[in-house]
């Protein structure tokens, strides 16, 4: 996660998207989206295909015009301003390097519009290429570069004009796994070094979680939740977000006790009760969903002792624990994924790190096990 968290605002937000809608005929690609991005942030828009994230990005760049709503960058209304007049630069998914120009000419292209001397242009081109570590490739043409090299040139080209805002469209999608990890950290370093505000569009959660200081999850043209990666992962606002990021166990249930500092939910799903040690705002008897992340669940051959620190009447055994049979085990090396089927037929997904090297005593298929979690682990969702 990028270090610039806590969205330190210098007063007004740097990028303000105000009730922006984009329709293509009857199809609504972006539906009344409002968003604020602070200066110097790396903000990620995360969503699947068709979520509207790319359309929103293109509206920021100026390639699409909002059907309604406004976009402000550094306080300036961007309505009617063409892409070439905006203080925004974009790094395209396909990099879009000009094939008939050298690396140097590609990067210098944006500077030619500004009245700089030849020497000044050359200096700045050299400077930015050194930052992306492509300094020795000035005379190469794009087809003479590898994928990772082209990406860096595309980044340099977009940054050399020192834009107020840099838009990145799936920046790591075309790179292979190892390169992707390496580049993720490089991107963050460059951003911190230059202090440019980034808005990144991606469908890859890992990318979003690694890069962003804050992120927004988009679905069907709307922003579903905005927050830091921790917020989004640990405190998802809706079932969609909980399910979209990482994996999650979702239990449907009825709210039986609703107190300011705890709730109890009866889940027929797995035939047990969930006790959560914080209050939620909902009506008693309402249908809610309980989301528990696989890594927060413990798997053991014996049921756990009554949870410590729980002094509520009625609390005790049988809550936040379920008995089941191990149906599948996926050994991933650093951890194992267990799929446990409860007596009610529900499958619970549990991940456990493989702490011990020796395998004799490991839980294995068809064993009867108890899966349990701490009272503060579940997230209760009402929508």
């Amino acid at each position, binding site marked *: 996660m990028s270090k610039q968290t806590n969205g330190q605002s210098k007063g007004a937000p740097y990028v303000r998207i105000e009730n922006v809608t984009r329709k293509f005929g009857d199809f609504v690609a972006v539906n009344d989206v409002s968003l604020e991005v602070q200066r110097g942030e790396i903000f990620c828009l995360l969503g699947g295909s068709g979520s509207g994230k790319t359309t929103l990005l293109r509206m920021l760049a100026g390639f699409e015009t909002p059907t309604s709503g406004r976009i402000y960058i550094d306080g300036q209304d961007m309505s009617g301003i063409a892409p*070439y007049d905006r203080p925004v630069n*974009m790094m395209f998914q396909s990099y879009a390097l000009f094939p008939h120009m050298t690396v140097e000419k590609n990067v210098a292209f944006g500077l030619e519009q500004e009245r700089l001397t030849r020497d000044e242009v050359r200096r700045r081109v050299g400077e930015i290429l050194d930052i992306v570590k492509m300094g020795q490739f000035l005379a190469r043409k794009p087809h003479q570069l*590898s994928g990772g090299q082209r990406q860096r040139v595309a980044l340099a080209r977009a940054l050399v004009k020192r834009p107020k805002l840099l838009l990145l469209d799936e920046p790591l999608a075309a790179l292979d796994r190892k390169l992707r990890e390496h580049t993720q950290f490089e991107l963050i370093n460059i951003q911190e070094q230059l202090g440019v505000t980034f808005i990144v569009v991606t469908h890859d959660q890992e990318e979003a979680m690694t890069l962003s200081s804050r992120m927004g999850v988009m679905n069907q043209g709307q922003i579903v939740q905005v927050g830091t990666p921790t917020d989004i992962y640990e405190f998802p606002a809706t079932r969609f977000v909980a399910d979209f990021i990482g994996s999650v166990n979702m239990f449907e249930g009825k709210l039986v006790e609703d107190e300011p500092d705890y709730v109890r939910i009866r889940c027929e799903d797995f035939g047990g009760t969930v006790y959560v040690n914080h209050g939620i705002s909902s009506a008693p008897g309402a249908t809610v969903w309980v989301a528990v992340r696989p890594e927060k669940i413990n798997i053991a051959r014996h049921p756990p002792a009554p949870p410590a620190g729980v002094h509520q009447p009625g609390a005790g055994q049988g809550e936040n624990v379920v008995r089941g049979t191990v149906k599948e085990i996926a050994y991933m090396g650093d951890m194992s994924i267990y799929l446990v089927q409860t007596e009610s037929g529900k499958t619970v997904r549990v991940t456990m790190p493989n702490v011990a090297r020796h395998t004799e005593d490991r839980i294995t298929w068809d064993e009867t096990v108890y899966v349990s979690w701490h009272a503060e682990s579940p997230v209760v969702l009402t929508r």
Partner: protein
Amino acid sequence: MKSHGLFSRVALVFGLVFLYVPILSMVVFSFNNSRLVTVWDSAHSPTLRWYQALISNEQILGAAWLSIKIAMIAASGAVVLGTLSGVALARFGAFRGRALLAGMTTAPLVMPEVITGLSLLLLFVALEQTIGWPKGGGAVTITLAHITFCMAYVTVVVQSRLVGFDESLEEAAMDLGARPVKVFFRITLPLIVPALVSGWLLAFTLSWDDLVISQFVAGPGSSTLPMVIFSKVRLGVSPDVNALATIMVMVVAAGITASSVWMRFQARRRERDMQLAAAANL
């Protein structure tokens, strides 16, 4: 699958033979000493006499020169206009009058030449009546006519090249601050040059080769090469025409071979570059 492939391959061979036998026969008989052209005079052949006759034939040389001049101007004009309309049709989306422009640029592709020729002549006559120009036709009217029907072909070539063109390159240029005109001249144009070149060559060939339209709109005193050839061959075969044909075939074959060798060379160099880049794999 095998027998099926065989049938089409036989057809291909037959078709190629069909295409080239007439050309080859013209070439062969251009060296035939006999005036009867197709009766081989083994005693005195092969000979270059028809080539010599060709070189000294003022009428043919003059007509050839006129045809070349007209074709060069017409091809250049057609490329300029065809590029403009190709860009408009490929990039401007829906605009008022789009159907009109699209229709006017595809109709000449299939329109019978007698109709085009007739209509253009009537236009020039009407113009002459109202504003006194052009006087009796001539090279100018032929050139204007050729530009008009050649630009349709260039439009199709340019338009289909632009439609397949990676628009993100143009967007990237605009994003970096370049105005649309600059984007066109610095980014789009350099990358579609091959299409423009082939468009120019296409227009040149069509103009150089045109008979019907030229016949309609030419005035007295301007005879293009096809017009001269046509009046000769209406009366039957003529050996110096064979010689002319051979020269043209040689020029075209040389040109095409040279260009495909050049393209092969370019492609191979690119591939080598890309392999080097992947191998370095930084």
